[in-house]
């Protein structure tokens, strides 16, 4: 068994020239509830590459959000990360101490959440919350900048003094022409305008926050900084969240269903914005969603999750063109599209299994149409079946390919298909 597990992890290499930035290996997160142990994430492995968008797609309760929270170690109380490695820039984040981990959060790996209203503190202004990120992670840079600006400011002040002296001298000497005098006066005025406000820590913070808000397309950022989250619209709030996430120029942005709570047109706006920003900042994005449309829109690579496992992991183009895993197939054919008009939609029968007592073997086997005899006994592992294409299914495993097909009882088939 241990052998197979290691094979699972080792083989997860895509043929790509891009640099690997995050490696998740065999991650397991369990929730110890009163009813029993909920195996929310049970052996998930994937890689993220530089300047790429990885989509993590699956139905409710398949463990996609927990995976993201586990990467940042933000899983709440009854949940515990049992096993696995999260390797970011050659550091295993799971072995880090709390304090060290805090430096990564918000700086190198950031996260935005589904519900922007509840994710922003209601009693703090947008400005305070945006500034906080800078204060947490860029304090030194800001002080450096402050020193620089102070130097400039002092130079300018000195220059004003010089010019004023010149004018004073001129009153006694009267060497300067009228034009020169007016030039000097103009320069003094200009410099005075520039040096009216002494650069402070706060002013730099404010300037930075204003800039980042402008970047995410918020009109009138000066005013928004003073507002409270409840005074903004849903799209605006999500923009603020994105600005906070991007303010330290992170390597990885984890977006947990960023558009689910938004309207269709606003959703298009936010997706568009994310695409632009991703190209601008060269940030890798982990996009978590249940909406295959969003995945097709923005992602380069997709990992399909089912019941705590990744069942398929491939590039988006390949996956949508020719999905291999029965679950992915079912999922894609269940979505109504223009050419499926008048026909009945294909469905996946049955419902999502209980994560406390998950089915033995392949977790999808009770719902699978292509089920083999071995499916309820042996757990399938991610295996490479093509260029950058991984599937966890016995149908594609040479070892079990020829295993006899399971015959569904007619009654059982009928019954399960309906619910």
């Amino acid at each position, binding site marked *: 068994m241990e052998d197979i597990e290691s094979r699972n992890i080792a083989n997860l290499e895509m043929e790509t020239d891009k640099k690997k930035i995050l490696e998740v290996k065999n991650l397991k997160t369990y929730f110890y509830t009163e009813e029993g142990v909920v195996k929310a994430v049970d052996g998930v492995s994937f890689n993220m590459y530089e300047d790429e968008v990885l989509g993590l797609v699956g139905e409710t309760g398949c463990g996609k959000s927990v995976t993201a929270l586990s990467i940042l170690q933000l899983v709440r109380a009854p949940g515990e990360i049992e096993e696995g490695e999260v390797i970011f820039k050659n550091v295993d984040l799971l072995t880090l101490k709390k304090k060290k981990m805090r430096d990564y959060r918000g700086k190198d790996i950031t996260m935005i959440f589904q519900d922007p209203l509840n994710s922003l503190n209601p009693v703090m202004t947008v400005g305070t919350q945006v500034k906080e990120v800078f204060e947490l992670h860029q304090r030194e840079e800001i002080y450096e900048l402050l020193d620089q600006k102070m130097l400039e400011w002092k130079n300018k002040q000195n220059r004003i003094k010089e010019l004023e002296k010149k004018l004073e001298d001129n009153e006694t000497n009267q060497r300067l022409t009228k034009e020169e005098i007016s030039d000097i006066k103009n320069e003094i005025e200009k410099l005075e305008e520039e040096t009216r406000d002494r650069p402070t820590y706060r002013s730099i913070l404010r300037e930075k926050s204003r800039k980042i808000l402008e970047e995410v397309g918020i009109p009138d950022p000066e005013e928004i900084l003073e507002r409270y989250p409840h005074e903004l619209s849903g799209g605006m709030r999500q923009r603020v969240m994105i600005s906070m996430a991007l303010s330290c120029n992170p390597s990885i942005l984890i977006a947990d269903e960023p558009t689910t709570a938004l309207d269709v047109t606003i959703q298009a706006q936010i997706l*568009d914005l994310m695409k632009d920003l991703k190209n601008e900042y060269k940030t890798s994005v982990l996009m978590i969603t249940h909406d295959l449309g969003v995945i097709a829109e923005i992602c380069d690579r997709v990992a399909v999750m089912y019941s705590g496992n990744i069942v398929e992991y491939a590039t988006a183009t390949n996956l949508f063109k020719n999905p291999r895993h029965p679950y992915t197939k079912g999922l894609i054919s269940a979505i109504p599209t223009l050419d499926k008009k008048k026909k009945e939609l294909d469905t996946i029968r049955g419902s999502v299994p209980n994560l406390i007592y998950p089915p033995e073997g392949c977790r999808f086997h009770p719902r699978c149409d292509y089920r083999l005899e071995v499916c309820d006994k042996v757990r399938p592992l991610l295996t490479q079946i093509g260029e950058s294409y991984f599937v966890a299914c016995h149908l594609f495993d040479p070892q079990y390919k020829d295993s006899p097909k399971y015959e569904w009882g007619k009654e059982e088939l009928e019954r399960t298909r309906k619910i």
Partner: protein
Amino acid sequence: MTIVEEQSIEIPKKREKEANSKRDNVILRVENMKTYYPIIGGFFKRRIGEVKAVDGVSFKLHRRETIGLVGESGCGKTTIANTILNLVPITKGRVYYKGKVILKSTETKEVLKEILSSITFSTIMDSVSYFFIAKMKKLLEKLEIELFHLFQKLKIIISYFPEKIREKISNFLYRTAKRYFRSKSSFKNKIRRNIQMVFQDPDASLNPRMKIVDIIGEPLKLLKNITGRRKLRKRVLELLNVVSLKREHLDRYPHEFSGGQKQRIIIARALACDPEIIILDEPTSALDVSVQAQILNLLKNLQKRFDLSYIFITHDLSVVHHIADRIKVMYLGKFVEEGTVDDIFNNPSHPYTKALLSARPTFDPTLRRERIILEGDVPSPINPPAGCPFNPRCQEKDKHIGCGIDEPRKIKIEGDSEEHFIFCLPFIEEKKSYKGWQFISD
């Protein structure tokens, strides 16, 4: 638990003849519906404004047909549903069911007001005081005279009040009475029986403290007067079978079901009284894709089986394309475009519809199109923009005349089916614009 005999029970196909014989197939007609919510505020709880949730909407629903209402959140789709079911009072307009008015804005208002204002305040005080004294006599003999004096005095004081204040008081009484009567005057059971609704959130629309039998049995008990326990259970079981749930689910509580099953239970409840119309308020938006497909299939099946008419409310265009026959696109309480499915999807004519359609995701990553991305947010319906409500965000604003000034007109799109209209303003280059366009209203 009583075990009901299980047989395959077909609910009889009904109304077929009736349907064929009827010349006019229209089953529900909404005429110029306006629903405004009052905004109550201030110290005296006055009405300080109103939200124009639905602002002048008319449509017809035919038998065995599905109308899709499409729009973003807050555009008034759900309010239309609530108004038709009389969960929200209608402000203006009428709703006809099979040619009979079932809802109208209260024109009896004036009559009631007259009656109430004829009852002067002093008569009320008189009766109250006498009643009060008679009642309290035995209990408070000591205070009798004082109380009588009090009421006499109050009466005198009130008679000194200027007419205006008295009117205000009677207005207040009238409003209280109206509220009372409105809740009392039942939207007749017969209509309730024929128009049912499926709500958006399957978790919240099932009472968590009631068993499934009671939930589905409630409309049967209240609207169909089925009282026997056995009878009720039998009928509920039939309904559960229709939505392919089983007998052992009868005595469970809602929290023991998955989202899809809950939605099936809600559908079963809506079906309980053999309705003719079911209003579906985003029935699949809270569900996963695979479950959504199951529910959509079920709904289509049921429609064929029981001759249902649907009003399908959603924001998901692919779903509406799959299930609807005709589509109404809404924006800020008004329709912006209406037509058959083919009209809307093949020839979207209103800029908003175009934008919506382009925002619809496709599953082919190779086909990433240029999208029309609308700027800004939906304006608040409390003070909608003047003229066409869409004009501040419209991407084709420059091509039209008077977007921010004139109300949009109903324009027929030639070349498509007879029902394709948009609500827009004419193009600037009039010659070009009149080609194939024909003004209907004003």
